[in-house]
């Protein structure tokens, strides 16, 4: 399974499309972030992430 990232929200997934943004996902990504508690995470806030989950730092 190839892990892909949404080019808009950076969420990681196996699917071809991001279920939240409804746009194609990309396999060209780097950096890795697990958000557990977005409300109390300065990193999540800096990246405008408000859902827990796995994210890429950069997606092309």
């Amino acid at each position, binding site marked *: 399974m190839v892990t892909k990232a949404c080019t808009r929200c950076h969420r990681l997934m196996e699917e071809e499309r991001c279920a939240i943004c409804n746009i194609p996902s990309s396999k060209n990504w*780097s950096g*890795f*972030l*697990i*958000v*557990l*508690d977005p409300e109390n995470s300065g990193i*999540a806030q*800096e990246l405008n992430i408000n859902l827990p989950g796995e994210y890429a730092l950069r997606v092309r």
Partner: protein
Amino acid sequence: MIYAFRTLVGQEKNVARLLARNVRNSDIDVTSILVPDTLKGYILVETPSKVDMQDPAFKVPNLRGSVEGEISFEEIKTFLNPEPVLASVKKG
């Protein structure tokens, strides 16, 4: 607060996932785990307050203990907006 933990090189993402699973099943307060590609053999753990490094949640295969001291949020910001590889190559 952000702490660096050493991991086996190449196992950063796996260690981060296992640690995240432990955190979800424990009382330990970790808000995010960051794995920059440029930082081989380390993961960065964000917590809202001081955490007990001896907590069983930190017992993860290939996780090799914390690095002394905290990392400032300013330092972390450089990892959050990595320069695109191609954009940093000058056109000639």
